């Protein structure tokens, strides 16, 4: 409810994503072959940067207003709290980007056959980015907002490579399932691993 009332949290990444994607046809001209070959990289870089825009907000307000203390003091497992916060963050930033990516795909002349692979790669990739973003946000809690994005960006390279490979493979009529499986495995390992690391990183802020 709070996340939805703070409209800037979900509107800003969405607008940012669409603006970045729209700039490419404006800068490069409406050449279908050029834009469709660039589409995987453009969509993924825009999605990656947009999803990082709101990571700072995952825990910052709860830390400032003392709600985070309540979470840790309750006898509920902290892992559940972090997982819930990441899920909400994905719902308000990742999901709108996922929906907007269809518009981006049309703008960049991505063939219809590549829509499903693109959506699947973004579904897995943005979820993983939210997990990674939560860890960055926990480590940079109470510090500069940009710091969490700087912490996260180097670790997002494998997701970027896999995500673009899925769309590029589908554009070249190649099998992309292997890349999706790797992204799925990263997410499956990331849910317990990154949530636990985030809990530890959050607790460091009290020491």
């Amino acid at each position: 409810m709070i996340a939805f009332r703070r409209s800037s949290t979900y509107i800003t990444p969405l607008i940012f994503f669409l603006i970045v994607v729209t700039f490419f046809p404006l800068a490069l001209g409406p050449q279908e072959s050029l834009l469709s070959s660039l589409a995987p990289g453009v969509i993924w870089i825009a999605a990656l940067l947009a999803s990082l825009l709101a990571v700072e907000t995952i825990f910052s307000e709860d830390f400032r207003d003392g709600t985070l203390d309540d979470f840790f003091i309750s006898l509920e497992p902290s892992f559940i709290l972090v997982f819930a916060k990441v899920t909400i963050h994905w719902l308000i930033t990742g999901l709108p980007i996922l929906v907007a990516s269809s518009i981006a795909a049309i703008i960049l002349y991505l063939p219809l056959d590549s829509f499903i692979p693109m959506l699947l790669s973004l579904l897995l990739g943005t979820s993983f980015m939210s997990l990674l973003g939560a860890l960055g946000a926990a480590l940079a809690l109470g510090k500069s907002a940009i710091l969490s994005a700087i912490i996260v960006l180097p670790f997002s390279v494998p997701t970027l490579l896999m995500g673009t490979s899925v769309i590029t493979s589908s554009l070249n009529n190649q099998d992309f399932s292997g890349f999706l499986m790797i992204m799925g495995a990263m997410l499956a390992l990331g849910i317990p691993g990154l949530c636990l690391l985030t809990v530890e990183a959050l607790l460091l802020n009290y020491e």
Partner: protein
Amino acid sequence: MLPNLKVENLSCVRSDKAIFDDVSFDVLPGHNIEIIGSNGSGKTTLLRTLLGLITQDKGEIVWLDDAGKYHNYRTFECLYQGHQLGIKNLLTVFENLNITKHAKGMSQEDIYKHLERVGLSNVNEFASNISVGQRKRIAMAKWLLKEFKIYFIDEPFSALDDTATLLIEKLIKELNAKGCSFVITGHRPSGIEATRVEI
């Protein structure tokens, strides 16, 4: 009567400087502990250490379970009210109370009753628009949602007028009568009946 919490020779050191040293007390059911200290003396750190948010360097913190055994981990849920109060600006006064875990299953009327008890009638006002004193009253209403064995309250009497101070004292007395204990902090002794610990 066994203490619900026993603190023995507790010390916390950060950057070679003792935040607090050799603190000992027992929290008996229905009794209060008041930690007195000046600004920066480590009162908040002590509360957070007791609750496990900060690791102690020396000493022991043990909690009583329902079977009458002591453990070095917390065996029951407590209420902690820090300086920040845990109030969400984007929620109304009513919503701030209604979203808490302990209000689950409670009727709207019960929540209104608790808010009325602490003197809050502007229930549909956003928390961002109310004063610090009124925010403290929301936090006080949270005390009434559930009877906790121990309430850890950081400087409950700061930024409050006389009416609110009297209300806190009354609430503490009422909850004490039900067997609840308070561990509170302050710069000087308050009007509540408590064992004073200076740090």
